[in-house]
C-alpha cells in the first residue's frame, strides 16, 4: 500500500513538473491528464470511490477535452511562446520553493490530531456521500445549478462573434453619384 502511494505520488509530481516546463501546450495537457489520473488513483487508495469516478469523468473527460479543443480551435500547438526573462523565471522558482518551505515549516513538528470518528469503511462510497449530499447539502446542490446557468450565459455572451452594439456605430459609407442617380430615377 505504501509502495502504491509512493508510485502515484511520484507520477503526479513528475507530471506536474512537465505541465509547467513543457514548451508545447499539447504536451502540457497530456501531462496534466496523467497527473489527474494519478490523483484519481490516490482517491481509490483513500477509499473515496465516488470521488475517483467523478474526478475522472469531470476532469479527465470534460475539462481536459475542453482544453484540447480550445488548443485545436486557436491553433496553439506550436511552441511559439517567448519565455519570460531569466530574472522572472528564477524569481518564479524561488517563490514556489519558498512557499513550499513555508508550508512545510508549518507542519514541521508533525500533526497531532486524533481522528474525530471511529474508522468506518463505508465512508467515501456512493451511499455515504449521497446521503450526506442530499440531506445536509441539498440547498447548495440546487444553488450550484444557478451557478452553472450563469456560467453558461456568461460564456455565450463572451463567445458571441460581434456585439450587437458595435453594428450601430459602424461608419456609413457615402453614396456614390451613380447610386444617387439610380435612387432619383
Amino acid at each position, binding site marked *: 500500500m505504501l509502495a502504491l502511494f509512493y508510485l502515484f505520488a511520484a507520477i503526479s509530481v513528475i507530471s506536474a513538473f512537465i505541465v509547467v516546463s513543457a514548451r508545447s501546450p499539447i504536451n502540457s495537457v497530456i501531462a496534466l491528464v496523467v497527473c489527474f489520473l494519478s*490523483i484519481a488513483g490516490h482517491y481509490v487508495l483513500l477509499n473515496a470511490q465516488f470521488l475517483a469516478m467523478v474526478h475522472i469523468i469531470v*476532469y479527465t473527460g470534460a475539462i481536459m477535452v475542453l482544453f484540447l479543443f480550445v488548443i485545436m480551435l486557436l491553433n496553439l500547438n506550436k511552441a511559439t511562446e517567448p519565455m519570460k526573462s531569466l530574472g*522572472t523565471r528564477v524569481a518564479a522558482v524561488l517563490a514556489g520553493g519558498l512557499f513550499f518551505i513555508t508550508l512545510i515549516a508549518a507542519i514541521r513538528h508533525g500533526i497531532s490530531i486524533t481522528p474525530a470518528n471511529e474508522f468506518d469503511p463505508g465512508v*467515501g462510497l456512493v451511499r455515504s456521500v449521497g446521503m450526506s449530499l442530499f440531506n445536509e447539502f441539498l440547498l447548495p446542490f440546487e444553488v450550484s445549478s444557478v451557478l452553472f446557468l450563469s456560467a453558461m450565459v456568461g460564456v455565450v455572451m463572451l463567445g458571441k462573434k460581434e456585439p450587437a452594439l458595435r453594428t450601430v456605430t459602424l461608419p456609413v459609407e457615402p453614396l456614390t453619384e451613380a447610386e444617387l442617380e439610380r435612387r432619383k430615377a
Partner: protein
Amino acid sequence: MDQGIITAIRIVPLEHYIVLSFLLFSIGVAGVVFRRNTIIILMCLELMFNSVNLLLTAFSAYHSDPRAQVFVFFIMLVAAAEVTVGLAILVMMKRNVDSVDVNQLNRLKG
C-alpha cells in the same frame, strides 16, 4: 460492510498526503508565475484545485467523515464552471489581440 477493505489512510501517515499536496500546490504557484501562456496558467490553476481536493479527501478519510468529500464535489463543480468562463475569455482574447500572452493584458497598468 466488507471488513477486507483497507484504506491507505490507515497505513500511509497523514503527513505524507499533506506534503504531497503542498508540493503540488507549490508547483502550481510557480507555474502561474513562470509561464506567459494563458492556457498553461489556467492548467496550473487546475493543478492547485486538485492538490486542495486531495488534501480534503485525505482528511475526510482520516476522520471518517463524508462531508469533506461533498465539499470536494462542490469544488469540482465550481472548477468546471470557472474553466469554461476562463476558456471563453481566452478565446475572446485570442480574437481581439491575436495572442494568448498574459503580458498583452496590461491596460490596467496606467
